[in-house]
């Protein structure tokens, strides 16, 4: 029982992260049609920023977090301007570019942090909230959950209630039509990857105090993000969020009651099943003839 409740809490916290990772990937793919293989590395950069600023130079955590978001956003924008924009309409080119960035960022991380054991960041919000002697939630994780929830809500508001967000969605639905309606594709692309970068930076910054920080940590992030986005539907943000939480639950409970490896296998197989039954994901739009 205790384990069951604890697992539910764990699932939600994990779900929050999965959603942050996935949503960024969806945005960039939806709006720019590029699969950003370096997305995981962006998260990694976010985490390293916290390690440098907060753990090494003692900058307050919240400031470091903001700077991390800013930095990663900048990297994203740079990628859009110099790598993705020239490769518009050439997804494979964009893919290769993102792989190049992936390699480079990993080495930068290696130069900054060196090898040896993974970097660690002491949690700024130490301590654990204990509910009725059977639920224990570290304040750091509570904080992370809250922030990711807020971030996702803000994103939802931005996309559904603002003119810019509307133009983003328009481009995601039909690039040409949007362009005809006078929407500036380059600008929307920049916004999309900016937001995506910001979310990646945020995710990295929130993860930093709870996980191992090492140059190749982006790999797992990317794979999970893929699973989530596919199950959720590549075009659909709400789908990504729902799928993230579902996947987190599945993964947590299978891990707890069966095995971690089996859990990952299940994730992949479910992804395939979803693709077979509904090639555009649970929330994805039907592709018409």
């Amino acid at each position, binding site marked *: 029982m*205790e*384990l069951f409740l*604890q*697992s539910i809490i*764990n*699932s939600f*916290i*994990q779900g929050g*992260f999965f959603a942050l990772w996935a949503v960024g990937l969806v945005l960039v793919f939806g709006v720019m049609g590029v699969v950003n293989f370096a997305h995981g590395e962006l998260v990694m950069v976010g985490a390293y920023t916290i390690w*440098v600023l907060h*753990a*090494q*130079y*003692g900058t307050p955590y919240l400031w470091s977090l903001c700077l991390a978001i800013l930095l990663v956003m900048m990297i994203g924008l740079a990628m859009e301007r110099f790598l993705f924009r020239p490769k518009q309409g050439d997804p494979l080119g964009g893919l290769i570019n993102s792989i190049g960035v992936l390699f480079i960022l990993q080495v930068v991380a*290696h*130069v900054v*942090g*060196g*090898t*040896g*054991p*993974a*970097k*660690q960041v*002491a*949690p700024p919000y130490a301590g*654990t909230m*204990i509910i009725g002697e059977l639920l*224990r939630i*570290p304040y750091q*994780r509570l904080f992370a959950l809250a922030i990711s929830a807020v971030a996702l809500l803000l994103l939802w508001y931005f996309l559904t209630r603002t003119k810019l967000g509307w133009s983003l969605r328009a481009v995601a639905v039909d690039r040409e039509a949007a362009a005809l309606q006078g929407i500036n594709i380059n600008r929307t692309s920049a916004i999309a990857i900016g937001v995506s970068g910001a979310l990646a930076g945020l995710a990295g910054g929130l*993860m930093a*105090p*709870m*996980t*191992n920080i*090492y*140059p*190749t940590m982006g790999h*797992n*992030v990317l*794979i*999970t993000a893929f699973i989530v986005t596919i199950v959720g539907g590549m075009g659909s943000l709400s789908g990504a969020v729902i799928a993230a939480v579902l996947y987190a639950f599945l*993964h*947590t*409970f299978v*891990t*707890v*009651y069966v*095995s*971690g*490896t089996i859990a*990952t296998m299940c994730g992949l197989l479910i992804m395939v099943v979803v693709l077979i039954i509904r090639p555009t994901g649970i929330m994805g739009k039907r592709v018409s003839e």
Partner: protein
Amino acid sequence: MTKTPKEVFQARFGRRRFLGTALAGAGAAILGSFPRISIAGTKTVKLGMNIPMTGDYAPWGLPGLYGCQIIANNLNTDGGVKIGGDRYMIEMVAYDHGYDTEKAIQGFKKLALQDKVKMVMMLGGSTVGSVLPFAMRRKMLTSTLLPSDITPETPYLVAPCESHPLYNVTGVEWLARKNPNAKTAVIITTNDIEYGKQSAATYNAAFEVEGIKVVDVNFHGFDVVDFAPIVSSLLAKKPDIFCMATDVYTTPIVEQLFHQGYKGKIVSCTLDGYQDVIAKTSKEFVEGLTYQFPDFDDPALNKPGINFPDPGGFDMAFNKDHAGEWSAVAWEYPSILLNWVEAAKAAGSVEPVAVTDAMKADSSPPHTFGPGKWWGKELWGLSNAVVGDWPVVAINNGKARIQEFRSVYNWLQKYNNVLKKHMQALDLRTV
């Protein structure tokens, strides 16, 4: 080891350092590619390292190279080593195989044939597997950190330093004696063969010998980002001892134990960077946490019989240039280098076969933590691993200190059948 992260960082980013780091690779490369201008009357002997320096496995390669360069420089500045009437300068040549089997065999041949090194140090596992056919045929002395690579067909493959994971039995022994009323234990480890399952088998055996019941073993993949679920499921078994048969994930796991209010004892294989662990939990929580890898500034390492020159000085030198990169391999490869020097002196030659024979001829070969014994026939069909004493380390108010040295050899002599049983239970190769 006892630097604050801040110092660590400035050490890394002092103007001199930063360039240094950025060019470390290129620098090492140059060291490798150009033969050192040797002083008149001295020769140069090259020793190879076929290790991962990039990718996920880099932490088990690069620090070792740094350590070896420190030791080699020390020996060279002392005028080199005297082998068979000649003075030899020692030169380390490294090849990065990124833990890829294809590149491992190419790297091995480059080192053996092009650089003409006299020994090749490797990490172990599949990369060693891919070079063995060539290495054994060529009679090239090869060292691994995983004795489980040894088979009856590998006379030139030695594991003279880390007898992973056999030494873990000492920690369990010590802990059990300190806590006679501990009755149950859980084990968490990775689902791979080389590290995870070997360790799990060893710990299973060690606990059985101490009459402690292992109530759950969790094999997890390398894709775990959050250990909360696994730790919760293990703690649900209410163990007296929580055993971490893993290296990379110790910090997040201990952190979870802390947050989930674990009260019992913790035994681990390693605890690299334990200041971080303390920072993430609390001094009180990690008090008495038992593991196997000492800081090298530990005074206990200055006792006679330790076969490692000036551990404290080595530790300082390493942290001066490579602060925060310390991991067990940082001293293990150097220790193998030292073993080679001793054997070469004894053999009066640097030729691989001669050195190997000299090594094997020594009935009590110099092991890092005191005289050792050749062992392994019982498990792998060939006694090419050196086992001797191994330190049991525990955290005493925020500082890792060696509690005592216990003999791995004696344990194995008594209980290797138990170990064998548990290895076979996990489908691990034994004779």
